[in-house]
């Protein structure tokens, strides 16, 4: 018999008790090409945005243009270490967990093994004058100029999009020719432009080979991510992982649906070796199924340092330290104040995402994680009748796992039929005869149409009752 409960887990996350699964693999952000990673901290009207880019070209070609609501001061801009992202990514990435069935013929023996498993605790980011001169003629004002770490930063305001575009191109910022169409609405919305190039001297002096993430902070009503600029030169889709931190609860998208990625699914053991591709395909399929215009929730958890409940089940990596949350911008976390972590994954393309992403902070503290479950079969002799019944159940279960795998990823599972059939080899002829159907029972995924059906039936019954009621009323009238 299996010794754990998987379904219903999403519902019971609040009171999750100890589970004996432990982390073995993760699907981290590096799986996705054309990806950017963002840390988005929202505290009242304050936003702290940290941007990490997987820029692969020559660093002298690097350019970043971000619309921002205010003119940033020198103190509002920082360079942070990439390992903050790595720590967050490792902690919140979709995870694979393993469980072990107990041998029904040796129940007593298994209990001891379980204890020892449980004890294995889970373990597991020169041109200044020319610039200014040309700026004036194009309606572009250089509001401020800073060098922060390996970056040269300008804060620009503009009155005219063509002028801004021309200025950026003339000064070596590689932005697409069509960018003015997008720049125009930003200028009219009174946004400023945070413009970044690499300072090669500083870079070589810093001793870093790669570009570190840049962090900016500002106060504004606006809680959004301007994704349209990034799509000006791209028809393809891009992935963005958002690690969001608030004091109260989950961050969700206001102008697109925020949907949970499929979770708590039982999948075949052989996926263990291919968990990366598995999650990639799962995500692609979920993205298509939801109409290519949704934001996916991959993780949501109370990460307050003093929070006594379970931090994850299982943990993919060691929990980030309060110091790392502070570096990420959630500076209140170090004082032990409530901190809630939301990981969102959005795959966006121009045609499906006409609007920039707008977010809101909710008081929703429901925990969520993307986890996929492997269950190892019982070991040892299974010749007793309970053991044979177990094998029969195991056979059906493996069929369901294959069907689940197919449903989640679209992988062809025909070639893996042996995965289920090998179980039959361990069954005695009598048990085989007892089996009613030789091939799998239909897959029934969790979260089926149960609730809607109930609502429809309830509405129907209520209307019938009302019919009776209102008739009587009319007669009385």
């Amino acid at each position, binding site marked *: 018999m299996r010794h754990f409960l998987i379904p219903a887990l999403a519902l019971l996350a609040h009171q999750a008790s100890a589970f004996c699964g432990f982390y073995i693999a993760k699907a981290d952000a590096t799986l996705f090409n054309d990806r950017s990673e963002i840390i988005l901290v929202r505290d009242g009207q304050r936003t702290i945005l940290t941007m990490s880019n997987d820029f692969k070209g020559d660093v002298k070609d690097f350019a970043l243009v971000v619309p921002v609501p205010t003119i940033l001061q020198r103190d509002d801009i920082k360079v942070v270490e990439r390992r903050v992202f790595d720590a967050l990514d490792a902690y919140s990435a979709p995870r694979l967990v393993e469980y072990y069935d107990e041998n029904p013929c040796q129940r007593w023996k298994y209990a001891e093994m379980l204890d020892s498993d449980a004890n294995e605790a889970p373990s597991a980011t020169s041109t200044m004058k020319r610039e200014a001169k040309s700026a004036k003629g194009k309606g572009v004002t250089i509001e401020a100029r800073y060098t922060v770490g390996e970056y040269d930063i300008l804060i620009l305001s503009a009155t005219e999009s063509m002028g801004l575009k021309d200025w950026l191109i003339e000064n070596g910022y590689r932005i697409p020719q069509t960018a003015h169409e997008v720049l125009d609405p930003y200028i009219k919305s009174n946004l400023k432009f945070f413009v970044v190039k690499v300072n090669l001297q500083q870079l070589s002096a810093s001793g870093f080979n790669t570009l570190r993430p840049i962090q900016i902070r500002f106060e504004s009503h606006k809680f959004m991510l301007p994704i349209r600029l990034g799509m000006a030169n791209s028809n393809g889709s891009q992935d963005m992982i958002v690690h969001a931190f608030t004091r109260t609860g989950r961050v969700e998208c206001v*102008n697109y649906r925020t949907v949970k990625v499929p979770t708590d699914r039982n999948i075949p053991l052989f996926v263990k070796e291919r968990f990366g591709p598995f999650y990639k395909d799962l995500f692609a399929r979920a993205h298509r199924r939801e109409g290519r215009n949704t934001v996916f929730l991959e993780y949501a958890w109370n990460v307050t340092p003093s929070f006594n409940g379970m931090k994850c089940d299982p943990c993919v990596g060691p929990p980030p330290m309060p110091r790392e949350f502070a570096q990420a911008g959630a500076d209140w976390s170090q004082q032990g104040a409530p901190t809630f972590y939301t990981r969102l994954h959005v795959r966006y393309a121009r045609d499906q995402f006409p*609007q920039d992403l707008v977010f809101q902070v*909710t*008081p929703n503290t429901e925990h969520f994680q993307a986890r996929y479950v492997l269950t190892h079969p019982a070991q040892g002799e299974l010749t007793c009748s309970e053991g044979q019944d177990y094998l029969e159940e195991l056979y059906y279960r493996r069929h369901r796992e294959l069907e689940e795998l197919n449903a989640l990823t679209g992988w062809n599972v025909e070639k893996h039929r042996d995965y289920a059939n090998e179980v039959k080899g361990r069954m005695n002829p009598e048990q085989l005869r007892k089996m009613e159907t030789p091939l799998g029972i239909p897959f029934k995924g969790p979260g089926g149409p*149960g609730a809607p059906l109930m609502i429809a039936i309830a509405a129907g019954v209520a*209307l019938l009752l009302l019919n009776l009621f209102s008739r009587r009323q009319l007669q009385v*009238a």
Partner: protein
Amino acid sequence: MRSLIAFFQRDARHFQIIFLAGFLAYGIAVLQWDAEWQRYLILFGTCLAVQALFISWKKLPWHSIKSAMVTGLGMSLLLKADSMWVLALGAAVAIASKFLIRIDGKHVFNPGNLGIAAAVLLTGQAWVSPGQWGSGAALVFLVGAAGCMVVLRVGRIDTSLAFLGAFAALDFARQVLYLGWEPEVWLHRMSNGSLLLFTFFMITDPMTTPKAQGARIGWSIAIAVLAFVLGWKYWVNATPIWALLIVSSITPVLDRIWKGQSFRWLVPANPTA
């Protein structure tokens, strides 16, 4: 079959109940909302219970329980909270307000609207997810069509059209004409399911809209203008809900200035009843 048609024709709330329940089922089955039936049960149950309480206290006709069903379903579609007591509070405030906040024999606030505002503002533990519907074309059509059926029967299509027309025009002027976004940005904003649901199923409540048609149209436009300004200037989300709450407080004044006939849900069996 004939009796079924007659049944629906007798009371527009029957349509409302069917459509709202349908939307809820669609949300859970297709849009993958959390299928936590306890939440819906609490909202729905509290609405019915509080209504029943007032019915027996004030000796009112029992058919008014249908209004509580509409409110319960409407709130299930909009209000979210982690704790059950927050939902119960919202539902209780919604229904109780109908009986306790009355001027000139008419309740002032849209019950669902006030219930949602109370839960969000008083507890800080409830929220509304304007993004939960997405902007699917089919959905837009369905909500629009279903909504039209109901409001045509109720005779409040003027409210929906005035609100949506004014809001869409203001947003078009801002997003497309002034900022220079492509029209599809505007279309994406206007096809938001939450906005349409609000347009056809919330502000159309005949009991809390001004009685006179002219006043009603002005009132709807006022909601649209306020909702637009709150969203543009202050980046408030779910602005129509807040705008309705604020503008509703002047409904009694409008009713005193512009007189009109009170609304009755039941189409009477005989005209004198």
